[in-house]
């Protein structure tokens, strides 16, 4: 269509000519305000980034500080509702997973995301001690990505069968090739598909 808007790719800092698919990054802008400064003051170097994208603030923190920050946000800043816990897989990156916590404050009517990057095999601390709802949400992350949470009260698969092999939402898990052995054994389908 004529009016197709080129989604202006955010310029990578080191003007990398116009390589066809540039390793573009999110065009986030720094997030200033009361909350980021309080967090920086409290946690210092553990806060790696405070940004907003399309009006949605997020902070990136070191893996070990997620739970203390969720705790601080809950008890000091009234972010008392953990909306969601999820992950994103970037297999080519050294710190393979983005672990995303979304928290909301009823009192402030604000929602922020706490993001951390972890390597495959790293066992992040479970947030159940702060937010009870993290229980099932973390189980789902474990089920889908194979991220094991330390000190989780009940870390079992939740959507897939207990003896399923592999973690479906990892990028290297092919959509056409599921756990054939499980399908053959449990469903009696010879092809395993």
């Amino acid at each position, binding site marked *: 269509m004529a*009016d197709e808007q080129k989604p202006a790719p955010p310029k990578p800092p080191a003007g990398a000519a116009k390589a066809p698919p540039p390793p573009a990054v999110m065009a986030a802008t720094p997030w200033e305000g009361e909350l980021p400064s309080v967090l920086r003051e409290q946690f210092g170097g553990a806060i790696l980034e405070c940004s907003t994208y*399309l009006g949605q603030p997020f902070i990136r923190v070191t893996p070990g500080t997620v739970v203390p920050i969720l705790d601080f946000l809950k008890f000091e800043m009234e972010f008392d509702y953990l909306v969601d816990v999820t992950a994103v897989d970037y297999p080519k990156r050294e710190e393979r997973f983005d672990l995303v916590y979304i928290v909301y404050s009823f009192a402030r009517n604000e929602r922020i995301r706490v993001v951390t990057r972890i390597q495959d095999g790293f066992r992040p601390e479970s947030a159940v001690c702060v937010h009870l709802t993290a229980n099932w*949400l973390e189980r789902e992350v474990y089920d889908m990505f194979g991220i094991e949470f330390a000190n989780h009260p009940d870390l079992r698969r*939740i*959507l*897939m069968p207990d003896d399923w092999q592999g973690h479906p939402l990892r990028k290297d898990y092919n959509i056409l090739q599921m756990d054939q052995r499980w399908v053959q054994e449990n469903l009696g389908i010879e092809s395993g598909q």
Partner: protein
Amino acid sequence: MADKTFLDSTELVLNMGPQHPSTHGVLRVILKLDGEKIMGTDCVIGYLHRGVEKIAENRTYAMFAPYVDRMDYVAAVSNGLGYCLAVEKLLSVEAPPRAQVTRVILTELNRIASHLLWLGTHALDIGATTPLFYVMREREEILNIFEKYCGARLTTHAFRIGGLQYELYEGFEEDTLRFCDWFLPRVDEYEELLTENRIWVDRLKGVGILDAEDCKAYGVTGPVLRAAGVEWDLRRAQPYSGYEQYEFKIPTGQNGDTYDRYLVRMEEMRQSVRIIRQAVERIEPGPIMAKVPKVIKPPVGEVYVSIEAPKGELGYFIVSDGSTQPYRVRVRPPSFVNLQALDKMARGGLFADIVAIIGTFDIVLGEIDR
């Protein structure tokens, strides 16, 4: 002394489901009982897992839109709205006014349809057979409007990224208003049947209490949260699709029990009618689609957008890598998170109440398992 036999134990582990009429789909609950008292529960879910989030990564943005209808299949319109809003946010486009008003009408109709189905099945679970037939009759009228609008009754795919799938049909306004006029007295009829019915009250009052603190701790949203006295509705707290322009009340309860949740949902249906009537007056001629590129390629970024679905906060977390396919789509289903509080609500209660407690969540397993 004779050896202890199994009869000496007072505890019994009982399996309920997955094929059980009052689990509203394929939910399996393992219960530990001491006599009639529930000592603990464990939910086994995943029987309807279709890997919707994985499918999304292998489809273009537009191709994935119909899939979301299949999650909460009794409120498909809400699912579609949430997804479209999330992608529109990524693209930084906004649907034109005509589309926004229509979206409000259709989602509110869908909210009524969803609550009606909840009422019918919930009442049936508890032993009141009659309401089911009444609510199905009313729901039929809503589905007829959907059918006339887009040809589908359940999995509607009513919206497109950037606006509406179809132009409104001739007589849509009249049909909708006629439904509103006809429907409101019916809600009073349901209330006459149930609200002061001795059996209904006895079975619901004080059953499955979840107070505001627990709701927040478990991330429970929607009517369950409001019945605990928290006046929180995303349509008011963080309005989308122009909800800030409509007048409506957020019904709340006080005790956070099953009876209050019933009252909250009944009032929500009335409020939905109120919103629909205001919205019909706002329909104005104009385009139904914003300017959206034919090939949807949102810039690199991630957004979380959520709406007030009939069951609670329905959120979409979408990560774009700048290509035509989403890099990651995470659905935050209200039923999944709400169901987690089942154990808290059922523990210590009577076994006979478990059915009422499952029903009061208004869960849809298609959404829990995705």
